[in-house]
C-alpha cells in the first residue's frame, strides 16, 4: 500500500536535477510521472509472462491472458462500470473518442442531426466530431464558455439542447481552465432529449473519483499516462447495450467469431473493438496504476490536488498584471495564466532554468484561446507528489521572470 508520507519516493523520475536545480515537475496535465509499482509491472511482464493473449494454450499465454483480462476487470472497478465488457482498451483518450466517432456516429447520425460540444474542448474531442459531421451530414453546435472564469454557460442549455441533438460530447475537467463540469447534470439533461453522452475524462481520471454509473454517461474516454500509467494505453467505457449495437471500427484478428472470404461475424464487446494484438504490457501496468491510486485514496487525491491548485491561484493572483483563467475555487488540479507583456514560451523557457517544468501555448484549445483573446497561457498542473514548496518555487520563478522582462 502506498502511503502519503513518502509518495515522492515512489516516483523515481522526480529525483533529479535540471541544470543545477532540483526538478519541480508541474506539467502533470500533459503527462504524470509513473510510480515504481507501474514500472515494476512492465518489467515483470516482459521478464516473466510475455506472450500473446487469447489464442494461446500454453502456460505463458494463459498467464498473459489472465493478467490482461484482470487489468480490464481492475479498470472496470476503477470506473465503477457494471461489467469488464464495458471497458475497451485503446491508445488513450484520443483513440477512444475516435472510436465512438467512427463507430457509433457513422452508424447513427445523418443530415439534420446535431453533435453538441462545448467551447472548452481539447482538439481530441473536437476534430473527431468535425470529421464525423463531414461524413454523416450532421452539424456541430457549441455550448458557450462564460469568459475568464471559465464556466459552461448552463443558462443556454435549454435553448441549445434540442431533440436534434443526438450526441453531446464534453470534457469532465478542462485542461486549460481547470474547471470541473457538472457531468451528472449534463448527462441527465442530454438523456431527456434522447442524446447520448461522451465524456472526455483525460483530466479527471487521475484526479477525481470517477463513477460512470453515478455520472450517468454513455461513454467515458481516458488516458493511462495522465494517471501514473504508461503511455500508449487508455480506455473507453461504454454502456453495454450501446456497445453491443455498434459496428466494429477496425478489422483484424481477435475481433471475429467466424470469417468467410466474403463476410465475417463479430465478437461482442470488448473484443469487437480491439482488432489485432493489444497493448498487453501497458494494459496490465494500467491496472497497477489503478491499484496505486486507490491505495492513496481517490477522495484524498482530489482534495490534495484542489488545495494545491487553489493555493497556486491565490499566490499567483498577487503578481502584477497577471490574468488567471478558470474559477478561483472548486477547481481541479491546475492553474493557467497569462501576462499581456510576456509570452508563455518565454516564461516556460525561463522557468525551466529554475528547474520548474511548465507548459505554455494553446494547450490544444485554439478556438477557446481565440475566444478569450489570448495567443496562449502558461499552465502549472499538480499531482499527488507535488507540495506547497513546489508552488513557492513556481511563484519565485515567476517573480524572477517579471523582474527580467519589465
Amino acid at each position, binding site marked *: 500500500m502506498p502511503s502519503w508520507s513518502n509518495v515522492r519516493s515512489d516516483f523515481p523520475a522526480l529525483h533529479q536535477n535540471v541544470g543545477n536545480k532540483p526538478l519541480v515537475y508541474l506539467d502533470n496535465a500533459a503527462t504524470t510521472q509513473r510510480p515504481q509499482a507501474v514500472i515494476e509491472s512492465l518489467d515483470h511482464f516482459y521478464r516473466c509472462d510475455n506472450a500473446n493473449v487469447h489464442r494461446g494454450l500454453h502456460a505463458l499465454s494463459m498467464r498473459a491472458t489472465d493478467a490482461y483480462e484482470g487489468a480490464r476487470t481492475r479498470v472496470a472497478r476503477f470506473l465503477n462500470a457494471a461489467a469488464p465488457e464495458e471497458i475497451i482498451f485503446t491508445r488513450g483518450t484520443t483513440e477512444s473518442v475516435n472510436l465512438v466517432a467512427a463507430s457509433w456516429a457513422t452508424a447513427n447520425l445523418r443530415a439534420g442531426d446535431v453533435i453538441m460540444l462545448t467551447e472548452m474542448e481539447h482538439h481530441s474531442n473536437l476534430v473527431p466530431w468535425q470529421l464525423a459531421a463531414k461524413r454523416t451530414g450532421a452539424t456541430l453546435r457549441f455550448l458557450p464558455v462564460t469568459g475568464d472564469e471559465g464556466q459552461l454557460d448552463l443558462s443556454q442549455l435549454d435553448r441549445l439542447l434540442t431533440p436534434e441533438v443526438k450526441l453531446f460530447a464534453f470534457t469532465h475537467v478542462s485542461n486549460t481552465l481547470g474547471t470541473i463540469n457538472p457531468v451528472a447534470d449534463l448527462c441527465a439533461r442530454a438523456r431527456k432529449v434522447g442524446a447520448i453522452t461522451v465524456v472526455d475524462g483525460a483530466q479527471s481520471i487521475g484526479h477525481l473519483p470517477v463513477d460512470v454509473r453515478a455520472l450517468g454517461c454513455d461513454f467515458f474516454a481516458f488516458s493511462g499516462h495522465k494517471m501514473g500509467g504508461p503511455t500508449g494505453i487508455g480506455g473507453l467505457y461504454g454502456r453495454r447495450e450501446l456497445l453491443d449495437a455498434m459496428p466494429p471500427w477496425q478489422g483484424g484478428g481477435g475481433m471475429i467469431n467466424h470469417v468467410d472470404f466474403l463476410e465475417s461475424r463479430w465478437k461482442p464487446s470488448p473484443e469487437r473493438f480491439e482488432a489485432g494484438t493489444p497493448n498487453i504490457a501497458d494494459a496490465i501496468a494500467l491496472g497497477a496504476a489503478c491499484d496505486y491510486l486507490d491505495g492513496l485514496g481517490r477522495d484524498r487525491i482530489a482534495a490534495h490536488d484542489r488545495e494545491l491548485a487553489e493555493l497556486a491561484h491565490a499566490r499567483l493572483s498577487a503578481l502584477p498584471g497577471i490574468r488567471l483563467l478558470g474559477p478561483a475555487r472548486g477547481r481541479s488540479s491546475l492553474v493557467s495564466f497569462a501576462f499581456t507583456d*510576456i*509570452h508563455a*514560451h*518565454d516564461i516556460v*523557457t525561463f522557468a525551466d532554468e529554475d528547474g520548474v517544468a511548465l507548459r505554455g*501555448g494553446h494547450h490544444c484549445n485554439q478556438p477557446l484561446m481565440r475566444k478569450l483573446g489570448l*495567443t*496562449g497561457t502558461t499552465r502549472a498542473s499538480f499531482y499527488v507528489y507535488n507540495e506547497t514548496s513546489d508552488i513557492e518555487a513556481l511563484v519565485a520563478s515567476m517573480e524572477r521572470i517579471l523582474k527580467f522582462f519589465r
Partner: protein
Amino acid sequence: MSDLADLYQQVILDHNKRPRNRGRLPTANRVAHGDNPTCGDQCSVYLRLDGDRIADISFDGSGCAISQASASLMTTQLKGRTAAEASKLYDEFRQIVTTGQAPEEISDLAAFAGVHAFPARIKCATLGWHAALNALKGDPVAATTESHKD
C-alpha cells in the same frame, strides 16, 4: 544561466519591449503573413518596394520575445536594401541562429547567436524573415517556419 542570458540579450529585450516599425504600413505595396502553428506565433510584414529596393518596411504580430524582437530588428536591417541583399542577409542570419557563429561585419543581428543553443526557438527567430522574403517574392501564401527544414 549563461545559455539563457545569451538567448535573451539586451538588444532582444529592448526590441521586445519597444518594437521598431511596428504596425501596418499604409503605403505598403507588398504584404506577407507567417505563422508557427504549434507556438501560435504570428507575424505580418509590410513592404513598400521602390523598384528592387525596400523603401519602407513594418511588421505586426504576436508571439514570444524572440519572434517579436527578431522581426523588429529585421525591419531596421532591411530598410533601404535590395531584394538580393535582403536574401543574403537572411542567409547570414540563419547561419547565426543555427550555428551561433556570426560573421565579423554583422552587428546587431549577432544578438541572436544564443538561439542556436535552443533549437526549438530557431523557428521563432526566423518567422519574420520568412514573411519578409515571401513579401519580396510577391508570394501571397502564408509563410510557416514549421514545414521548413529549419
